[in-house]
C-alpha cells in the first residue's frame, strides 16, 4: 500500500513539473524589420526570464495577414495571442474570436494608457485589444527646400497651413529646379494605407466614412458634397503635377526629388538618416471649414495591437506576455525602433523622441487635438476595402460622385446583409 502511494505521488510530481510550463502560440505580422527584431528579442527574453510560460512566436506575411487570421478563425485554428490592425478589432470582437481584456487590466494600467489606445481597443463597452504603440500621421518636410521656396513652416496644430497656404506652398516647391513632385502621398502603397492616410482628408472637408451616429449607413456622409469636394481636391493634386500618381518608390523626400512626404511615424528613422537636421515635421493642414464636423483638420490614429483569442486554453498565460511587452521600458524599445507613439503616458515621458521638445512631440499634440479613429464597427473590413478602391479610382480620374456612390452602395449592402451587426 505504501509503495503504491509513493508511486502515485511520484507520478503526480513528475506530471506537475512537466506541465508547469504552459506553451502558448503567438502570431504576428512580419512588418518592418526593426519592429520584428524588437518583438523577437522580447519573446526570447520573456522565455528566458521565467519558467511558467513559453511563447512560441510565428510570423506571417503582412499582405494577407487579415485573411489568414480570418481563415484560421473559421477553421478553429487560431493561436492564443495575435497582433491585429486596430480597426479590425471590432469585426473580430463581433465575430467572437477575441476576448475582453478588462478583467486582467489593473486600474493603474488603464489610467496610464493613451486615450487613443483605449478608444481604438474598445467595442461595446469592453476593451478587446491593446497596443504597445499608437501611430502618428503628418507631413515630413525638407526644411532647406521650404526655406528656399519661401514657405512658412508651421510648428503646431493651431498654426497649421490652411488649404490655400498648402496649395501655395506646393506651387512654390514645384517651381524649385530640384523638385519633380513636391508632395509624396505614398501612392506606391494601397489598401489600408488609403484609409489610414486619406480618410483624414475627407474628415477635414467635413465628410466621413460612415454615419457615426447610427453606424447603419454611409449614405450622405461618404458621398455627400463635402466628400465629393475632398475627392476632387485629391485628384487636383495629381492634375496640377504636385503628386506623382505612380511613384517607383517611397523615397522622393529622401533622395531630394520631393519636398514633402504625407506619411506616418514609421518614416522617421529613414528620413532622419537621409535629411539630418533638414528634416521637419509639419502638422496636418486645415483643409476644411472650422465649423465643419471635425473642425476642418484631422489626422489618423490607431495601429497594430494585441488580442487574446477565445479559443485559447491559457488566456492568462497569453496575458502575462502581453503585460510584459506593455511595460514602459519594453514599449520604449519598440517606440525607439519604429518611431511610433508609445502607448503609455509613463513611456511617453521617458521617450527622447516624444517628451516635451522631442523630435516627434507634434504627434502627441495631434493625437490629443485632431485625431479621428477609424470607424469602430464590424463593417470596417468592407468600409476600408471600398474606401481604398474609391480613392484609387478617384486618383485615376474617374467620376468622383459615381465612384463614391458605388462605395456607399457596397457598404450599405454589407450592413443590411448582417442586419446591422447586432451584438446579441
Amino acid at each position, binding site marked *: 500500500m505504501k509503495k503504491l502511494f509513493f508511486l502515485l505521488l511520484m507520478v503526480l510530481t513528475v506530471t506537475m513539473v512537466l506541465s508547469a510550463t504552459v506553451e502558448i502560440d503567438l502570431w504576428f505580422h512580419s512588418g518592418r524589420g526593426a519592429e520584428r527584431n524588437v518583438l523577437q528579442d522580447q519573446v526570447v527574453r520573456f522565455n528566458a526570464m521565467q519558467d511558467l510560460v513559453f511563447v512560441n512566436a510565428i510570423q506571417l506575411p503582412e499582405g494577407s495577414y487579415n*485573411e489568414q487570421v*480570418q*481563415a484560421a*478563425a*473559421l477553421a478553429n485554428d487560431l493561436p492564443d495571442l495575435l497582433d491585429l490592425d486596430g480597426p479590425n478589432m471590432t*469585426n*473580430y470582437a*463581433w*465575430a*467572437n*474570436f477575441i476576448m475582453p481584456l478588462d478583467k486582467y487590466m489593473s486600474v493603474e494600467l488603464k489610467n496610464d494608457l493613451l486615450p487613443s489606445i483605449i478608444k481604438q481597443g474598445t467595442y461595446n463597452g469592453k476593451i478587446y485589444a491593446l497596443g504597445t504603440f499608437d501611430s502618428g500621421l503628418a507631413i515630413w518636410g525638407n526644411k532647406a527646400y521650404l526655406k528656399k521656396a519661401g514657405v512658412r513652416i508651421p510648428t503646431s496644430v493651431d498654426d497649421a497651413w490652411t488649404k490655400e497656404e498648402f496649395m501655395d506652398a506646393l506651387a512654390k516647391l514645384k517651381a524649385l529646379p530640384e523638385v519633380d513632385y513636391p508632395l509624396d502621398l505614398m501612392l506606391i502603397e*494601397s489598401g489600408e494605407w488609403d484609409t489610414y492616410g486619406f480618410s483624414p482628408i475627407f474628415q477635414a472637408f467635413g465628410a466621413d466614412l460612415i454615419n457615426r451616429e447610427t453606424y447603419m449607413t454611409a449614405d450622405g456622409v461618404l458621398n455627400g458634397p463635402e466628400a465629393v469636394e475632398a475627392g476632387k481636391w485629391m485628384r487636383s493634386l495629381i492634375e496640377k503635377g504636385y503628386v506623382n*500618381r*505612380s511613384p*517607383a518608390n517611397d523615397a522622393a523626400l529622401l533622395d531630394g526629388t520631393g519636398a514633402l512626404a504625407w506619411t506616418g511615424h514609421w518614416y522617421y528613422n529613414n528620413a532622419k538618416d537621409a535629411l539630418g537636421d533638414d528634416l521637419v515635421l509639419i502638422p496636418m493642414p486645415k483643409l476644411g471649414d472650422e465649423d465643419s464636423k471635425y473642425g476642418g483638420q484631422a489626422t489618423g490614429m490607431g495601429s497594430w495591437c494585441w488580442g487574446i483569442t477565445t479559443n485559447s486554453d491559457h488566456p492568462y498565460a497569453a496575458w502575462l506576455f502581453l503585460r510584459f511587452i506593455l511595460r514602459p521600458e519594453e514599449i520604449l524599445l519598440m517606440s525607439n525602433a519604429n518611431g511610433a507613439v508609445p502607448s503609455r503616458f509613463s513611456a511617453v515621458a521617458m521617450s527622447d523622441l516624444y517628451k516635451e521638445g522631442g523630435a516627434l512631440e507634434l504627434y502627441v499634440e495631434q493625437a490629443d487635438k485632431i485625431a479621428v479613429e477609424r470607424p469602430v464597427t464590424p463593417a470596417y*473590413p*468592407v468600409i476600408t*476595402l471600398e474606401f481604398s*478602391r474609391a480613392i*484609387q*479610382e478617384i*486618383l*485615376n*480620374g*474617374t467620376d468622383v460622385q459615381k465612384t463614391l456612390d458605388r462605395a456607399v452602395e*457596397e457598404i450599405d449592402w*454589407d450592413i443590411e*446583409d*448582417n442586419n446591422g451587426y447586432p*451584438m*446579441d
Partner: protein
Amino acid sequence: MAYALSKKKKRAVLLFILPGLCLLSMFMILPFLMSFGLSFTNQRLLSRYATEFIGWSNYERLFRDDLFFTGLKNNFVFALIVVPIQTVLALGMAMVVNKHLKGVKIFRTAYFMPTVTTMVVVSVVWTFMYNPQGLINNFMQAITFGNWETVDFLKNSQWAFPAIMLMSIWQGAGFQMLIFLAGLQEIPEILYEAATIDGANKWRKFWNITLPQLRNTTTFVLISTTILALRLFDQIKIMTNGGPNDSTYTVILHLYNSGFSKQRVGYASAITVVFFLIVLAISIVQRLILREEREV
C-alpha cells in the same frame, strides 16, 4: 476501348488511378460540392450567428450584380484576344526551336524562362517596367526620338488591360511552346521525306503535314489556354487590383473580394458555381468543335 481487361490488369489500373483520384476528390470535388451547398446559405467567413439557408437569394442577387458581368465580359475579351495570339506565337516558337541549329537550346531556355518564373514575381517586375519612368516608356522614347508621350500604363483605363494581356502572353507562351514542341517531335520524319519526293514546298508541308498531325496537341493547348485565361487573377490582383475604372476587373477577383475581403462566403460560392458551369460549357463546346482524334 472495347477489349476486356483481365482482373489483374483492372486491379493495376485501379491502383494507378487511386492517388490521383484521392487528391482530386479531396481538393477539387469535395470542396466544389461544399461550395454548391454553401451557395444556398448566408455563410460568412466569420459571424456571431449561425448560418441560415436562404434558398436562391444568392443567385438572384448575382444576376443583378454589375461587377460580376463586368468581370465576365473582361474575362471573355481576355480569352478571345490572348488565346489565339498565344497559341499561334507558341507554335511559331516551337517550330523555331525544333530546328537543329546551333545554340537552339539557349533559345529554348530563354522562351521557357518566363513560364517557370512565378506569376507574382513576373507581375511585380512588369509593374516596374510599365511605370511612367520605367523601361517600356524609356524604350519608346528612345526609338521615337522623344516623340513618345509617356503613358502610365497600369493607371490608364485604355492601356491597363492590353498591358496585362501582353505580359500574360509573354509569360504563358513558353508553356504552350513546350507542348507544341513535344507534338512536333512526334511527327514521323518519313512524312516530310515523302512530301519532299512529291515536290511539296515548305508551306504545303506545314499545311498538310504539320498542322493535321498537331491536331490533338492544338486541341489540348486551346482548351487549357482558355481555362487559364478564364482563371485570370494573380497578375490583376498585383498590378491593377481590377482598376482603373473596372477595366481589368475579372470574375475570380470578384470571387476573391466577395469571399475573403467582404466575407460573403455564401455569395462567393454562388459565383463559383455559376462560373464553373460557364467554363464547363465553353470547354464542352470547344471539345465538340475540335474533336480530338484518339487512337485506341
